C-alpha cells in the first residue's frame, strides 16, 4: 500500500490556552503513523511533553520548532510510532498560557518511519509559484516516501495555495486558519521541500516531514561470501512480494548505484529468493564488500543494502572475506 494521508483535521483558537485536543473523525487503522502539528504565540513554547494521544502512542522528539520572531508565531511538529486501531484524540500542550494556539492532526498510512524533516520561516517569500518553502531536506534514506507539509501565514490572513505536485487532502482553503496542509508521494531519494504559493508577500512558516514506506527486508544472505556463477544462493527476509521483482548487487550501499548488476533469479517468493551470482563487467567480483538489494514490483527496495563478499574466483573470495 502506497503512503498516503488517510485523514486529517485542524483546530485553532485565538484565546490563550494551556492545551488543545482534537479527535480523529474516523477510527485509526492499525500500523498507521501520525503527523501532528502544533502552533502557539511565539513568546511561549511547547511543554516538555508537547504531545500525547488517548491511546498512549509514543511520539518522538520535536522534529522542528520554528518561530517567526517578528510576528511571534511558533510552529512545531511531531511523528508518532505505529498506532493501534480505534478512536483516538491528540493533545498538544504549551509551556504557559499561549494564545493563537492550534493543532493539526494527520493519520499517515502505508509508511513505516519518519525519515527527514526541516522547516523555515520566510518574511518575504514573494507570491511566486512554489516560492513559499520549508527548504530542502537532506537526501532521503529510501524511496518511495510520503511528503507531508504545512505552511502558516504567520503575518495573518489567508494561508497559501498548495505547491506544484502536492495534494491538499483537507479540502478547500480553511475558513478559520492561516494554515494549509499538503502531501505528495515521491519516488526519488533526492532531498525534497514542501512548497506553497503565497497569496501575499508576507511572512510564512513552512515545515515538512518525509515518511518512509516499508520495503523488502533482508534478514540473511546465505552464503554471504560467494563467487561468480555460483548457484543456489538464498536470501531470506520479508515483503519481497509474491510476484517477482528485481534483484541486484551494487558496489556501494546505494540502490541507485549506476554500476549495479542484476542477478539471475531462479526462485522468488515473498520471504525467500534463490539466485545465481552475476558479476557483470563493472567492479563487482573484486572481493570487496558489495550490497544486495531486493526491489518489489511496487519499486520498493530494502532501505539498506545487505553486505556480501562477491569475488570472481573462489580463491579471491576466501582471501578477502
Amino acid at each position, binding site marked *: 500500500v502506497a503512503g498516503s494521508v488517510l485523514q486529517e*483535521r485542524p*483546530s485553532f*483558537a485565538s484565546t*490563550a490556552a494551556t*492545551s*488543545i485536543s482534537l479527535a480523529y473523525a474516523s477510527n485509526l487503522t492499525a500500523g498507521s503513523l501520525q503527523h501532528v502539528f502544533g502552533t502557539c504565540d511565539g513568546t511561549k513554547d511547547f511543554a516538555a511533553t508537547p504531545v500525547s494521544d488517548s491511546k498512549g502512542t509514543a511520539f518522538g522528539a520535536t522534529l522542528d520548532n520554528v518561530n517567526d520572531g517578528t510576528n511571534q508565531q511558533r510552529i512545531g511538529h511531531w511523528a508518532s510510532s505505529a498506532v493501534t486501531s480505534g478512536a483516538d484524540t491528540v493533545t498538544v500542550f504549551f509551556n504557559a498560557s499561549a494564545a493563537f494556539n492550534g493543532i493539526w492532526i494527520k493519520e499517515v498510512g502505508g509508511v513505516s518511519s519518519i525519515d527527514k524533516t526541516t522547516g523555515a520561516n520566510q518574511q518575504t517569500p514573494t507570491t511566486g509559484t512554489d516560492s513559499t518553502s520549508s527548504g530542502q531536506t537532506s537526501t532521503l534514506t529510501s524511496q518511495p516516501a510520503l511528503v507531508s507539509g504545512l505552511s502558516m501565514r504567520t503575518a495573518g490572513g489567508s494561508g497559501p495555495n498548495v505547491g506544484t505536485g502536492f495534494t491538499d487532502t483537507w479540502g*478547500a482553503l480553511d*475558513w478559520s486558519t492561516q494554515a494549509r496542509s499538503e502531501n505528495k508521494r515521491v519516488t526519488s531519494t533526492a532531498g525534497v521541500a514542501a512548497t506553497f504559493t503565497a497569496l501575499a508577500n508576507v511572512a510564512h512558516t513552512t515545515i515538512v516531514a518525509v515518511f518512509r514506506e516499508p520495503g523488502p527486508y533482508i534478514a540473511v544472505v546465505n552464503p554471504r561470501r560467494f563467487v561468480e556463477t555460483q548457484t543456489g544462493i538464498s536470501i531470506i527476509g520479508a515483503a519481497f512480494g509474491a510476484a517477482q521483482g528485481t534483484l541486484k548487487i551494487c558496489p556501494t550501499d546505494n540502490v541507485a548505484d549506476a554500476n549495479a548488476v542484476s542477478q539471475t533469479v531462479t526462485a522468488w517468493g515473498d520471504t525467500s529468493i534463490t539466485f545465481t551470482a552475476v558479476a557483470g563487467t563493472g567492479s563487482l567480483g573484486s572481493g570487496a564488500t558489495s550490497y544486495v538489494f531486493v526491489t518489489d514490483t511496487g519499486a520498493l527496495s530494502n532501505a539498506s543494502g545487505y553486505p556480501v563478499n562477491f569475488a570472481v574466483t573462489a580463491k579471491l573470495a576466501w582471501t578477502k572475506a
Partner: protein
Amino acid sequence: MAKATQITVPLTSLTVGQRGPFTSGLLPSNLTGYMLDLTNDATWPTSGDVLKISVEQSNDSGATWAFDASITLSAGPWRAKDGTVINTGVWSVGLQNQGSATRKIRVSMDVLQPCVLGAVVSSV
C-alpha cells in the same frame, strides 16, 4: 458555507463545576466545521487554568455521542495579535464527513475557577 448560529450561552458568571451540555439542533449537511465565539469581561482570572470547554459530536441525531475536541482556557488578558487587550476570542474546529443530515454537537464546560464567559457556537 455561511456561518450560522447553533447555540448561544449568554455572558454569565460561572462558578466552579460542570456546565452544560448545551446541545445544537441538526447541523447543516454541508458544514466544514464549527466555531465558538467567546466573550469575557474584565474579571477574567489572572493565574492558572480557568475552564475546559469540550465538544461532543453525534452522527445519529443525538442518540449517541463521541468526544470531538476540547481546549483548556487559561488566565491572563485576552489579546489581539497586536497586543491590544480585547474581550473576544475564537475557537474553530474543522470537520470532515460532509453530507450528514443527522449531525449534532453539544458543548460542556468544566469551570476550574470562577469566571465570566459567554459563547456563541456556529456551524461554518
